[in-house]
């Protein structure tokens, strides 16, 4: 593992540690920059950085650029890159970690609705334990009306008539369990990046 001392002070080094501590995380050092990930990625055409570049930004300590890149939020999590990577790097997991950090630090790229969408969905999830499409879409639409205009409004009506729309979202009965689990997570301040936890 390379020496990081020269930027250990960097406040972002925790993201780095976190990536390394994922299963197979250290594989990023074995990246030979072949670009298979970019070719395999269905959305690379829209990315400002190819996945390959993200990996190299991460391991060369230019975390800031990786986190601000739109690429990470364009990742649709199809895992095609990870499945084909000759170096066995779980690129999708790296992308997730970067997404998490970029929202935590509030430095994520603004083009994508991804962060808003994710936050809204998670809020509902942690309130009810389940998601209902309708309230989710409305929840996101609050932030960005244009969301609704991608689809012809008639479609919602059609769906409704076809009996495919459920207005009342369901709720998990024993939400306590979920809350307790997350409470423990916060209390124990468990974090992936910590080395000698287990």
């Amino acid at each position: 593992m390379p020496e990081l001392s020269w930027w250990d002070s960097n406040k972002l080094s925790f993201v780095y540690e976190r990536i390394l501590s994922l299963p197979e995380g250290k594989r990023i050092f074995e990246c030979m920059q072949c670009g298979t990930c970019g070719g395999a990625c269905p959305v690379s055409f829209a990315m400002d950085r190819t996945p390959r570049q993200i990996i190299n930004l991460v391991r060369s300590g230019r975390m800031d650029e990786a986190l601000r890149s739109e690429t990470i939020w364009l990742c649709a999590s199809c895992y095609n890159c990870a499945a084909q990577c000759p170096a066995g790097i779980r690129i999708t997991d790296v992308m997730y970690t970067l997404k998490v950090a970029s929202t935590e630090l509030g430095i994520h790229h603004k083009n994508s609705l991804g962060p808003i969408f994710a936050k809204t969905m998670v809020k509902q999830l942690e309130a009810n334990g389940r998601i209902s499409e309708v309230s989710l879409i409305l929840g996101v639409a609050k932030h960005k009306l244009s969301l609704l205009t991608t689809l012809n409004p008639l479609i919602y009506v059609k769906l409704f008539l076809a009996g495919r729309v459920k207005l009342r979202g369901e709720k998990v009965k024993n939400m306590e369990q979920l809350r307790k689990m997350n409470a423990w997570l916060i209390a124990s301040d468990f974090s992936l990046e910590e080395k000698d936890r287990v």
Partner: protein
Amino acid sequence: MKTLQFFPGCSLQGFNTAYYRSAITLGNIIGYKLDEIDDWNCCGATAYFSISEERTFLANARNLALAEKKSKELTVACGACFASLSKTAKYYTDSRKLAYLMDNALKEAGMVYDGKVKVRHLLEVVFNEYPRGELAAKVVRPLKGIKMAPYYGCMIFRPVPAPIPRDALEQLIQLAGGEAIDFTAKDRCCGGMLVNNRPDVGLALVKDLLSEAQQKGSQLMITTCPLCQVNLELYQGAVNRKYGTDFKIPVIYFTQMLGYAMGASAKELMLGSELINSLPVLQGARVSKN
């Protein structure tokens, strides 16, 4: 009649009720019963992972713990749920650190998980548990001459591949009398959440899938994942508007396709509830004596 402990997931309750309904109907025909796991919670799909990996693993750990109480197997029909659950199960065994996380959090909630649950996709169950001959024998309404695009989506094969050959769906289509096109995009991404988050990008992916399907003359697309179905179907109009294309391909679930071939009524399978009605195509099957 085997009982499958079943995890429906949120979308099988809303836009994709037809998937759930047809899965049950298919079970009645080929011999399984879906036993919905009690008080399950959302798998977090891809969104939760982008907010907190740890919490996503915990949410799914709860599902796995609930499942383990009843059976060592958990069957899933939704691609996203399959991915989240099987990934959690895999990482629980792969990473001591994550196992530690899940164990302790579960203990806090008075639950336990032994890492014994096998997460299975419904397609895999249907393909592996029932001899092809047996299934073929049940086909009473062969879908003769109907060209279909077998579309798996990403998550059956990735990140944790279901143990099926890469042409399992094709085999099922042929056994139903239909004709499967050589769909090279069968495991390419449908755009997932991008159709909302970055419509311009998401629609491009949907377009690519539809255009290969159309090029190769498929009249139907067969999916195994609710999100794929929604993206391919609901957004066809949007795609046509954006790219001036003229796609009009009905998109149905493999459960509906099989169920229909095996004689179930359109109603039992909720066929016709699509925005682009699939019944005309299905009924158009060349009737032949065999």
